């Protein structure tokens, strides 16, 4: 690392890893409930497990993004963070709000709105926390010696992500409007501004790992995020087909969401091409694996599997079935999970001075988690397609269908075990790097 204040990133990454492990635990609770082992029902009923599982996902990714920003912004702006103390305050308050929310879900303290279950009073704390974070990042950037495109795109993504949280706080009496504006948050996050964050991190990593000229990489970054918004904003329409709003969304959502895979395709081609072009052979191969992996898996998970059920003619049958879970898992893993693990893999050796680049454990973590996740996606997919045919086409009863497809959840749990094993190996590697220290300053890349 080049600046002492970058060390704060380490603790955001550590929090991120802790929350990831907890997320997996609640995933298993749900998986077992689906095959009849709902023994924890009294303490953790399915709706609690589900809310915790998805919210932990959001928080570990956000913690990872924040860590990434605290690592990347000083290096791009060429100065220390404006206040390390406040960054730690922000870290602790993030963890505290997260813990209150998660504990609250076990005591019916929630809002019951998919992905945005955090109750209103806590929403305000989230807003305060994010404002503090943005303040630190933006002031550092504007006081910095240079304002690179990479830093601007990353900061813009974080700023818009904060702004877009607000429509989710509007109260509505109508379920339709509630749902409509909830997607302003959820869709415009994951298929919009989070892609800016992903693009910013990806661009930073490619500059560092491949040695390709910054100007070339950043030019293509603009093109990619341009395609993202061009398709993604109006692509929000694919959530509006069947929730009680006008048919105009069938046309608009259908056309623009069909274009959404292009942004991910561009991202994958961009990463692979820059890697081929690059003359620099950076020794941190693991970071390169995760970086290229994120670009490719996000194209498959978010792009292709999203496209598979995005057209209104298909979606009328798949809307509200396990097909969505299939797409959701590989998309989040590829686009956001892997990019967070990529920046951690890159930053850790620089923060701690321990260059564990060649570890077999690290490579095993990569392959086991990815193969496990692909297996999970296939299991969800088979279960989802079977559900569509039996329930939606042949009109069988919901629970009869669930019993028929429960075998796929046995497969899901086996693949999830493999995935978890990979993640645990990754975390062992994380731990083996030790804590960040100032001696690592001389070891800057």
């Amino acid at each position, binding site marked *: 690392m080049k600046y002492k204040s970058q060390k704060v990133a380490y603790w955001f990454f550590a929090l991120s890893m802790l929350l990831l492990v907890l997320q997996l635990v609640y995933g298993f609770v*749900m998986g077992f*409930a*689906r095959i009849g082992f*709902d023994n924890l*029902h009294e303490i953790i*009923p*399915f*709706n*609690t497990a*589900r*809310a915790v599982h998805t919210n932990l996902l959001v928080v570990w990714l956000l913690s990872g993004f924040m860590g990434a920003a605290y690592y990347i912004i000083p290096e791009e702006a060429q100065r220390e963070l404006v206040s390390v103390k406040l960054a730690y305050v922000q870290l602790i308050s993030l963890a505290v709000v997260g813990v209150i929310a998660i504990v609250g*879900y076990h005591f*019916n303290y*929630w*809002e*019951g*709105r*998919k992905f945005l*279950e955090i109750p209103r009073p806590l929403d305000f704390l989230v807003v305060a926390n994010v404002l503090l974070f943005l303040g630190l990042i933006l002031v550092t950037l504007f006081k910095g010696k240079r304002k690179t495109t990479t830093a601007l795109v990353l900061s813009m993504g974080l700023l818009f992500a904060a702004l877009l949280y607000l429509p989710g706080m509007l109260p509505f*009496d*109508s*379920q*339709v*409007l509630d749902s*409509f504006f909830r997607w302003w948050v959820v869709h415009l996050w994951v298929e919009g501004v989070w892609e800016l964050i992903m693009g910013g991190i990806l661009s930073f990593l490619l500059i560092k790992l491949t040695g390709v000229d910054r*100007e070339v990489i950043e*030019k*293509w970054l*603009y*093109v990619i*995020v*341009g395609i993202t*918004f*061009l398709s993604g*904003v*109006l692509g*929000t*329409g694919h959530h509006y*087909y*069947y*929730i*009680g*709003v*006008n*048919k*105009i*969304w*069938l046309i*608009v959502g259908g056309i623009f969401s069909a274009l959404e895979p292009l942004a991910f395709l561009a991202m994958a081609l961009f990463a692979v091409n820059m890697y081929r072009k690059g003359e620099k052979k950076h020794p941190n191969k693991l970071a390169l694996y995760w970086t290229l992996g994120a670009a490719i898996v996000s194209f498959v998970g978010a792009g292709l599997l999203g496209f598979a059920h995005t057209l209104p003619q298909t979606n*009328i049958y798949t809307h*509200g*079935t*396990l097909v*969505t879970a299939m797409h959701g898992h590989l998309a989040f893993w590829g686009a956001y999970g892997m990019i967070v693990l990529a920046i951690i893999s890159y930053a850790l050796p620089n923060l701690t001075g321990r260059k564990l680049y060649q570890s077999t454990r690290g490579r095993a973590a990569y392959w086991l988690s990815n193969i496990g996740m692909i297996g999970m996606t296939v299991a969800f997919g088979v279960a989802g397609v079977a559900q569509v045919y039996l329930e*939606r086409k042949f*009109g069988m009863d*919901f*629970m009869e269908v*669930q*019993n028929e497809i429960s075998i796929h959840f046995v497969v899901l749990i086996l693949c999830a075990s493999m995935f978890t094993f990979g993640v645990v190996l990754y975390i062992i590697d994380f731990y083996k790097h030790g804590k960040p220290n100032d001696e690592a300053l001389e070891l800057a890349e």
Partner: protein
Amino acid sequence: MLSKKQARAFFLGGTLVTFLIFIGLTVFSLSGPQDQSNEENITESVVRGKLIWEENNCMGCHTILGEGAYYAPELTKVIDRLNEKYDGQGEEVIKSILMSEVPWQPNGRKMVAYGMTEQEAQDMVEFFKWIGEIDLNGFDRIVSPIAKRRLNNQN
């Protein structure tokens, strides 16, 4: 060849234009004759029902308007479906499930026992009735096999 400046203009311009169109379509689709969200039939009871729906995170297992967690049945048109299964007693069945003090376990999959009052259960029924009357661009026929059959018989 594309310059960085042009690339930036493409990004900023494209974003601005699509976002303005998005806002325009939102206003268009939610206003006047285009609105099909059944807004006019929301009663106080429906609003209370929605609040109960949220406070208990029903979406954490069920789906409604196709949104939720796929662990328990879709509840759009649930009254119609149960009416057919239980000789027109759909509303009563829903109320007894919601008021039960022991977990309802159809086919072994447990639902949390909410032990609601008669009034709360009635509010939920009103909420489901309101949901059932929304024009869902055809999705209602897919999730309600009864609606599908009825439609086929009419033709």
